[in-house]
């Protein structure tokens, strides 16, 4: 039992390590340097309002904004881009249909070619 727990813990560690390497790669690629500050001294964190917006409301036509007035989560699916739930579903359905069709045609072509080849 203990061995099993250690094995699972080791695997989780491997996954987290892989995620760590991906994060490092992303930071290197984007040139970003994550900086943290204490919430007590931060000027962007607010407890006012149900959404956390300094004025307690979501600005019309946009998403949440920080204290500087810059949009944090603007229009669009995530952080100012992308589509809605229906659009995301449509993208996934479209890709699925395309891949299934390609694989079907691919299979047809190869099956026909295999059928035409003389048996050895």
């Amino acid at each position, binding site marked *: 039992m203990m061995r099993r727990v250690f094995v*699972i813990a080791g*695997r*989780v560690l491997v*996954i*987290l390590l*892989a*995620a760590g390497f*991906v*994060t490092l*790669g*992303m930071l290197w690629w*984007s040139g*970003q340097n*994550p*900086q*943290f*500050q*204490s*919430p007590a001294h*931060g000027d*962007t*964190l607010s407890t006012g309002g149900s*959404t*956390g917006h300094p004025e307690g409301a979501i600005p019309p036509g946009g*998403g*949440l904004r*920080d204290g*500087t007035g*810059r*949009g*944090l*989560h*603007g229009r*669009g*699916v*995530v*952080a*100012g*881009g*992308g589509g*809605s*739930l229906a659009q*995301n*579903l449509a*993208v*996934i*359905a*479209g*890709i*699925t*249909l*395309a*891949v*299934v069709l390609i694989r079907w045609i691919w299979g047809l072509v190869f099956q026909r070619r295999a059928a035409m080849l003389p048996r050895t």
Partner: protein
Amino acid sequence: MNKVNFMIDAGIFAAFLAAEEPRLTGINWHEWLSVALAATIIVHLLLHWRWITNIVSKYFRKLWHVSRLKFIVDLLLFAAFTGVMVTGLMISRSVLPFLGIQAAPDRTWNSLHSLTAQASVILLGVHFALNWDWVTGMVKTFFRRLFRKAEASGIRPALVTVPKDKIRGQS
């Protein structure tokens, strides 16, 4: 085991779609749902550990195989998911402050979050499509079992026989 996998995968798919739409859930739910999704993805990877190690060990032995394509797509999906999670944490308004941490605001995190989120949708579509046979197989098995159970209990869901005299009585 397949049933557990299917249920977890269906849950991940639904949670992913919900997490990709912050307007649907609100920012707080969006963030906490994403954290829960990250934990579930770790469970998903643990359940498929044998497949992952098999593919890694056989990767260079055979030049072309569907599993190889699946592995590459899965690697990219993992990278995209990690990117979404990390950048999401950096612009977090609930999760990090809850832990007593606050990231300094930077617009680049938003752009990266957007980019990786969109990449995740596309890669999830490819991942779903490459595992389409398994999904349809599971759905078919589920309905076959349901049909068998219904037949065993005397219910015939597809064919409902109505006695002729009852039909006459109604008219």
